[in-house]
């Protein structure tokens, strides 16, 4: 048997959300102008650590989403510092997993941490979850993300026209998909 820790890469590791400690860091991210714009299409709003704590407590109580929602965190192995978020949402019936990935602070980007985390996430989704495909939705303005996922082998599958509004104008939302066979071939 392979005794490898599938959550650990060379420099980063995937971990559970820490509902007590992580909110302090994530509250800072939510006050930076670009994090939410790049990470999600939800309406941007600054959020306090206490609000986040309450939200996580509530979610923990319900346990409803456990079967298909995986809200993970990206940490540096060297000092265990929280640097990013990795969300997985699974449609088990189809064998499809939606992925979201974001590195919180600008200074933590462009070091290859995201690429390492993505590799871990894809191995987790294909080798452990046994999914058939992985997909993401990227706002049309996020050129860096489009290039990042294309470099990882994702293919543009659909362009939902003008479905987003941000920075005072409309944008497409781009769906990219990666099939298991494509991932295995590039492995």
């Amino acid at each position, binding site marked *: 048997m392979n005794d490898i820790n599938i959550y650990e890469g060379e420099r980063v590791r995937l971990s559970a959300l820490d509902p007590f400690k992580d909110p302090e860091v994530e509250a800072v991210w939510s006050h930076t102008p670009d994090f939410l714009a790049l990470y999600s*299409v*939800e*309406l941007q709003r600054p959020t306090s650590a206490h609000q986040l704590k309450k939200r996580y407590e509530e979610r923990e109580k319900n346990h409803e989403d456990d079967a298909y929602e995986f809200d993970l965190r990206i940490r540096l192995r060297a000092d265990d510092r929280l640097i990013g978020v990795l969300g997985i949402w699974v*449609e*088990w*019936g*189809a*064998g*499809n997993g939606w992925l979201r990935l974001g590195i919180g602070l600008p200074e933590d980007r462009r070091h290859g941490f995201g690429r390492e985390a993505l590799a871990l996430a894809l191995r987790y989704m294909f080798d452990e979850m046994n999914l*058939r*495909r992985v*997909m993401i939705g990227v706002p049309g303005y996020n050129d860096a993300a489009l290039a990042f996922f294309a470099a990882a082998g994702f*293919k*543009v*599958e*659909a*362009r*939902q*026209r*003008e*479905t*987003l*509004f*941000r920075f005072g104008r*409309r944008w497409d939302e781009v*769906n990219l*998909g990666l*099939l298991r066979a494509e991932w295995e071939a590039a492995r």
Partner: protein
Amino acid sequence: MINIPDRFTSDRIRLIAIDAERDGDLMARWSNDAGMMRLFDSDVPRPRVARQTRSETERWAYRDTALEWAIQTVDGEVIIGRIGLHRYRPSHRAADFHVGIGDRAHWGKGYGREAVTLLLNYAFGEVDLHRVGLIVFAANERAVALYRKLGFVEEGRWRQFLRRDGVDQDVLVMGILRHEWPPASPAVRRIHHVQVCVPSTELDSARAFYLNLLGLREIDKPGSLKDKRGFWAELDGQQLHVSTEDGVDRNRTKAHIAWQVSALAAWRAKIEAAGCATLDSIVIPGYDRFEARDPFGNRIEFIQAVAP
């Protein structure tokens, strides 16, 4: 007082509120038709009893933010399906929709089309959405054809989204924007261009007549027509295409183009000075006019409205 539209009723159906108590048995019956449930959802179809369909419906269709209705026939008041908006993102003014006619006996009768029409009127007219999207199995040809007919544009396909009976199934992503709804009915809007022909040796004099004398502005021809003889001209958004044709006696044709002008008398003098004989047309009310032949024999008319 404004005319209040009935957003929830059309010829044969109306959209009414969801009632888990009322519809529980019905939905349980639908859930036992696995083939049909496969068309609606990529999730594993599973048979349900009414107690389950009731609690599921209460859980997601009873929230204040839910936009979900039952489809009921006007005639007989039979509930035949469900329709609603989901993934509604208010700040983006966008949502997706889902629809299902639950009972096969009601398929193929246009109920789905009526229900989606009501929903889109509501989505664009009341919710003020900018885009309504949907996903549909590519193999569900009837549904895809309906959505195309309603004006949805195919925006892409999620490859091999699902595997059933050992076959990979693609999912189509479709969307319609506010200005694309309702789809334009086939109608002629206005005259785009007319074409006249001149002998192939007379293109220079045709330019002199139509551009210099009449004052039309020459425009570029498309590259694909560049090697064809002739030229295009434009006047106030409408076009005249001048092409060549030999061996035809144009003086015998009755068909003509009428040019609406100002200073009709001055035009008559100009046309005669250009060597074209003119003659009075039959009088019609509200207009002065005369006719002539262009230097190549095409009949032309000059017409000016007169004050009553």
